């Protein structure tokens, strides 16, 4: 499968992709997760052969692909802004790569009908793209990418322009569509939740660098550094300075906890503690939960029925708590929360994770 070996991409004096080595997981979902301008699209263009690396090599199954243009590679692409031929019917849109490959009519028909069935496009095959909803148009673009059985399928934020609910159902559908096919998918997204739900592997990107690559769950739960933890947290992870002093971790004079387990071997000194909002929970009256109790002033409470999000101020810093169910809070009131420090990440001041 495709592998990037010390690939760098420079444009003028700017480096868009810093030295990156990455071997895609064959036959699986490989998600590129990062904010706008993190380098996701550039990395995909390099993988596709739309642009060439400034240095480094691209290889696939032992073959050097560096400099091989996109037309000569077995690649399919779908972009955020779905592209269809407006004057072609949906059928001909999907069939177009097969026509280019000069397949026999009967074979074209067989393959188009099969993929249309999977993507629930069969009722619309005679329509023009303009007569379809956004979701149907994007499914048409997806069908065209899938029909040619490319070895590598690149999906650049393909669901970003769709309605929330449609995104939810396509997100569920996509891994199913690809399972059992012998192709490798690269999927770019800026949403951590989407990366998680797609399954497979995730590469976190930040400012043109891949900070980590591995199975979703392990990148999410064992980030190598603070940047990765930030990229892979939605809502944003709470971070605060903490000092290790002897057998204790101190967030402030009054908020401390034992430096037990993996923390015992850390040298004394300053660290950063990272706690995702769902590990900061409202202290229920009467109930005793694990963790360190704190009292904060409520700034904002967002209660949507399923979950309650509370922003509160603790030692001049804003923290966010995210809990299941309905927890009513009044803005301005003092409320108790518990920090589930058993789920905390600890980072050295320069950002590397040293314990959790």
């Amino acid at each position, binding site marked *: 499968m495709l592998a990037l070996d010390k690939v760098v991409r420079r444009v003028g004096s700017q480096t868009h992709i810093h030295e990156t080595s990455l071997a895609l997981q064959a036959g699986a979902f490989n998600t590129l997760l990062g904010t706008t301008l993190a380098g996701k699209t550039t990395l995909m263009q390099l993988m596709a052969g739309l642009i060439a690396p400034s240095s480094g090599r691209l290889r696939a199954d032992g073959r050097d692909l560096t400099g091989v243009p996109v037309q000569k590679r077995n690649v399919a692409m779908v972009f955020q802004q779905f592209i269809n031929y407006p004057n072609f019917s949906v059928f001909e849109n999907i069939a177009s790569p097969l026509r280019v490959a000069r397949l026999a009519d009967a074979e074209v028909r067989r393959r188009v009908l099969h993929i249309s069935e999977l993507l629930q496009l069969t009722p619309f095959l005679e329509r023009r793209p303009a007569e379809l*909803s956004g979701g149907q148009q994007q499914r048409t673009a997806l069908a065209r990418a899938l029909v040619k059985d490319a070895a590598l399928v690149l999906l650049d934020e393909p669901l970003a322009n769709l309605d929330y*609910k449609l995104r939810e159902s396509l997100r569920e559908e996509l891994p199913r569509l690809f399972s059992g096919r012998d192709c490798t998918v690269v999927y770019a997204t800026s949403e951590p939740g989407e990366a998680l739900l797609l399954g497979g592997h995730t590469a976190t990107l930040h400012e043109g660098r891949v900070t980590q690559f591995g199975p979703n769950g392990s990148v999410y739960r064992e980030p190598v550094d603070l940047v990765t933890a930030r990229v892979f947290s939605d809502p944003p992870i709470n971070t605060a300075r903490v000092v290790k002093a002897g057998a204790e971790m101190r967030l402030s004079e009054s908020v401390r906890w034992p430096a037990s387990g993996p923390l015992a071997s850390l040298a004394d000194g300053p660290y950063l503690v990272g706690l995702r909002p769902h590990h900061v929970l409202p202290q229920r009256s009467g109930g005793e939960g694990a963790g360190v109790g704190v009292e904060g002033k409520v700034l904002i409470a967002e209660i949507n029925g399923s979950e309650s999000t509370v922003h509160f101020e603790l030692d001049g810093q804003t923290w966010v708590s995210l809990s299941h169910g309905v927890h009513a809070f009044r803005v301005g009131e003092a409320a108790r929360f518990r920090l589930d420090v058993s789920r905390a990440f600890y980072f050295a001041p320069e950002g590397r994770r040293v314990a959790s």
Partner: protein
Amino acid sequence: MARLRLEGVRHSYRAQPAQDADWALKDVDLEFEDGGAYALLGPSGCGKTTLLNLVSGLLHPTQGRVRFGDADVTELPTDRRNIAQVFQFPVVYDTMTVFDNLAFPLRNRGMAPDAVRSRVQEVAALLDLEGMLGQRAAGLTADGKQKISLGRGLARPDVNVLMLDEPLTVIDPHLKWRLRSKLKELHQRVALTMIYVTHDQTEAMTFADRVVVMHEGAVVQVGTPVDLFERPRHTFVGHFIGSPGMNVMPCQVDGGVARLGGRAVPTANRPDASLAGRRTDLGVRPEFVRFADDGIPVRVARVSDAGRHQIVEAHHGDQVIRLLLREGESVPAGAAHVAFDPAYTHLYADGWICEARA
């Protein structure tokens, strides 16, 4: 400032609307309290943008009236309705400074320079823009620019309603989150009616005190986020709100009891008197389904890791039942049983909740 009312409003983009489908908006009666935080929520094509344009005056309704307090504004053009709008794409004057962008609507209204300065300072403080008043807007990030669009709306002292049309769509998730909270905080600090139009239930549910859910040109439910979550009036609301949405399962009803695969399922509401010939469904959210020792037999088909929770897809025959479990909770493999929390399990007839309470 005033209460905003839509009375018997219908709108069609066709000159001669004949059938039901010709109406983009079907007979809407709505009241927006002064100073409330509202969301108009629904999928593309549900009529929410039409409704917004009727309020702002960009469209004139085919039928019905629009009132601000006692004044009928149906015939008034947009610029005389004192409405501020924020759109999906930030509208800023790139060559101007942040200060001049915020001052623009005030200077346009002939406000004295001293008053302009103090008003701009006030708004900049609300939006954390104080440090960048001298910068050119061109260099700002998307969320910075969107704050300016918002600031221009807030700066005007004459605004009745601030309308936000998908204001966070083009913002990256981590910034979206911050700006969403900022909007909520702003609403708590300035007593201004805000109407937030979105297809994103998370945005609607976290911003608004009351959410107006729209579907196919009609308002299907108006309620607090907790109402919509706990007691959806229509299966559409149950499905559309929540991620994943409510489980909607066709069921039989006999002797006043709902049955799924022959097994009695206790519900929070009772069947309507006459259900003959009507489609009946059970609705229960994934949050209120649990694995149990005894209950509805299922086969666990798939478990998705969503970080803070797990989404489990279980099959009861052909029926998919989803469960939402917490991170780390154990999930049985293969055959299992599930139970529904009766307080949050509702019976629906032809899509609408049966109103008789248990």
